[in-house]
């Protein structure tokens, strides 16, 4: 991990740090053998997933999945500094705090906390916050990708329910969800941006079908809604008011949450270059290798600073105007460059997965994901669009970054 992004633990929290460290050492005992697995199907492992789910639940019981959330919703009622300690300690095990078991609660819970009614918060948040349920974000449709507002999935009110019809694509993962957090059109005659609503849809709803799609990074899914009935109480943020919920959602998806974890693949690359070869030399002594590594280390350092900046500003409720999308844009293009760099450095070795490594540290995963990870949740082009808008370029008013809870 690069020095600039690490954070000095305040004196008063040293006992808490020790508590977290000891707790994790115990909780991770059975999990150490799973270090090689991760998010995508290319290295699916059910046993590992079960372990992650139980770890998520145990963290959730203590309020450590959402440390700063109110206790009544299952949170820890702690400070941002506590959260930073938990995340730092978890990253030592290659675990990303928000993704312990591949649920997108880190995006969905803040949306419900900010835009839900009291009743909805009490009903939906504890499951997400305690790590008891898996949720997918379900936005994209065949004709609605970058243009998120062009939703054609209809949700028409019928008594106490909405009836959903339509199709979503490229969503979720290979692990079945409990809930779908989905954007629907609730007013066929309504104006653009004034016809949208968000729904928290139980995956067991009748009329809902999930079909896997094979993508370069692993399994995504097509979701069909055929007369799918969902209780009206599951519409969050008000009928036809979905666009304002989207701004919270998209800010989080676009990197506004930031991060204080390092990039394990860079540590791995460096480690390999420092390793002594059978002939006594190390790759790091070769001039071309040094030049490539220098670029990789410098750019990674910058990326970690941007990520840490967003992390702290978010927890202080003072989001950076364009920082969220800037970080995401920078990181994605860095990963694309790094994907080529590891082929320059290691040739074929970068094309074969090593299952003894965590996916995030594995070269093949980096190469495989390179040009695919550019588009999840919006492309580099729309990222630049958002960033310009937030800087107020070419318009008289700047668009503000939403606070994201």
């Amino acid at each position, binding site marked *: 991990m690069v020095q600039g992004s690490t954070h000095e633990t305040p004196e008063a929290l040293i006992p808490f740090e020790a508590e977290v460290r000891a707790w994790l050492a115990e909780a991770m005992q059975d999990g150490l053998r799973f270090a090689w697995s991760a998010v995508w199907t290319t290295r699916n492992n059910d046993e590992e997933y079960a372990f992650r789910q139980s770890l998520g639940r145990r963290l959730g019981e203590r309020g450590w999945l959402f440390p700063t959330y109110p206790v009544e919703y299952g949170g820890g009622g702690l400070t941002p500094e506590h959260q930073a300690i938990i995340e730092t300690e978890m990253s030592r095990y290659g675990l990303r705090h928000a993704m312990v078991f591949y649920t997108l609660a880190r995006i969905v819970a803040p949306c419900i906390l900010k835009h839900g009614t009291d009743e909805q918060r009490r009903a939906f948040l504890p499951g997400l916050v305690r790590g008891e349920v898996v949720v997918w974000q379900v936005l994209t449709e065949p004709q609605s*990708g970058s*243009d998120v507002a062009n939703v054609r999935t209809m949700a028409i009110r019928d008594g106490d329910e909405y009836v959903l019809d339509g199709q979503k694509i490229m969503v979720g993962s290979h692990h079945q969800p409990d809930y779908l957090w989905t954007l629907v059109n609730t007013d066929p005659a309504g104006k653009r941006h004034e016809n949208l609503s968000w729904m928290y849809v139980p995956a067991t709803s009748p009329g809902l079908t999930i079909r896997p799609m094979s993508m*370069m990074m692993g399994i995504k899914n097509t979701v069909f809604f055929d007369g799918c009935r969902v209780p009206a109480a599951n519409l969050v943020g008000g009928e036809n008011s979905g666009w304002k919920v989207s701004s919270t959602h998209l800010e989080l998806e676009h990197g506004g949450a930031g991060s204080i974890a390092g990039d394990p693949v860079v540590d791995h690359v460096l480690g390999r270059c420092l390793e002594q070869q059978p002939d006594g030399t190390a790759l790091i002594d070769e001039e071309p290798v040094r030049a490539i590594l220098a670029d990789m280390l410098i750019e990674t350092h910058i990326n970690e600073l941007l990520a840490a900046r967003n992390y702290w500003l978010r927890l202080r409720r003072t989001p950076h105007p364009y920082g969220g999308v800037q970080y995401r844009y920078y990181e994605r293009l860095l990963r694309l460059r790094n994907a080529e760099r590891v082929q320059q450095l*290691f040739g074929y*070795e970068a*094309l074969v997965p090593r299952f003894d490594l965590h996916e995030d540290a594995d070269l093949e995963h980096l190469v495989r994901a390179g040009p*695919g990870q*550019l*588009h999840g949740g919006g492309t*580099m082009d729309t990222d630049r669009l958002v960033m310009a808008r937030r800087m107020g370029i070419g318009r008289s008013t700047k668009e503000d970054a939403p606070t994201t809870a």
Partner: protein
Amino acid sequence: MIHEPTEEERMIRASVAQFVGREAAPDGLARARHEGGGFDRGLHRQAGELGWLGMLVPEAYGGSAMPVGICAAAVEELGRAPLMGPLLTSGVIATLVILEGGSDAQKSALLPPMVAGERTATLAAMDSGRGWGPAFVTAQARPDGDRIRIDGHKAFVHDAATADTFICAARLPADGPDAFSLILVDAGAIGVVIEPLPGLPSGLSAVSFDGVSVPTEAILGAPGAGRGTLERATHRALPLVCAFMSGACQAIFDFTVEYTGQRSAFGQLIGRFQRVQDHVVELANQMDGAHWMTLELLAKIEAGTATAADIHETAAVATEAYYQVCNYSHMVHAGPGTDLDHPLMGHTIASRALYQLMGTPDHHKRRMMDLRFPRGGAPA
């Protein structure tokens, strides 16, 4: 410098294009490769019947020895698909190694069935996958009575699982520090262990030679001649690989431009967004750099004026272009382009697999500089 295709070239192009279109629907290729299928012996035999596996081979060994321009035209069409596999690794690379290094008896025994598409061979040259050159050949070959015993581990071999013959690079005790020998090994020989590798490109395997015993006649050409053979064969194969990649870039350009006129977002065709236009502009610049440099190289080869530095320069440009053209096309296609059924995916996988085939772009750039500007050669 404007190249007018000959009638013969047009015909072979059409024949390969037709075959590729019919036999290997591009949409299915990425998936087939991804799932480890990909190689179809029937397909390979058909390619033999159509005569392309003999394009590089003199008539004496069953081929038709076409001019390099014609061969390049055919390979360019394979690139459009993209159809890699043994058509490239056996039909071009191994074939050229045997032609450049084999004795008359070896060529007579090996080439006719390869030309007919009945057998395939593949090069098992480097022990490490990290680089290309004598430093990466560490397998040992020791005289053992009237035979030779090979021990080594080739970490990354293309199309090994379906190959009949390996051309294994190994060091005989008499080979100097910079020399090695190429040795023909039957895929079925005792001690040959093939382990197909998982990962993005299929068709890669690790191949171990554990005390494999072969007769002395299995040495391709003379002992210790491997380095020179491989160098000559590489310099003949690289221009064709460049043609493959150049053809691939053109196919990607075509379907990418088409997509910009079909896909809408925010109520307009995506081709109207300047950012999308920028991706296509960069794509075209990469494509045309590779295309024109490859054409120039082929013309120089036909005129007998191509240098090794020219070949390495072109290889650096075309390899990098194929890689970047895929990236730019991904930027235009976004999500749908990452579906394994999308034609772009076959190219993305091929561009990553070819990136270090006979050296990375960096390797070729270093070779180009070393050849054109030998070190320590600054005029006094």
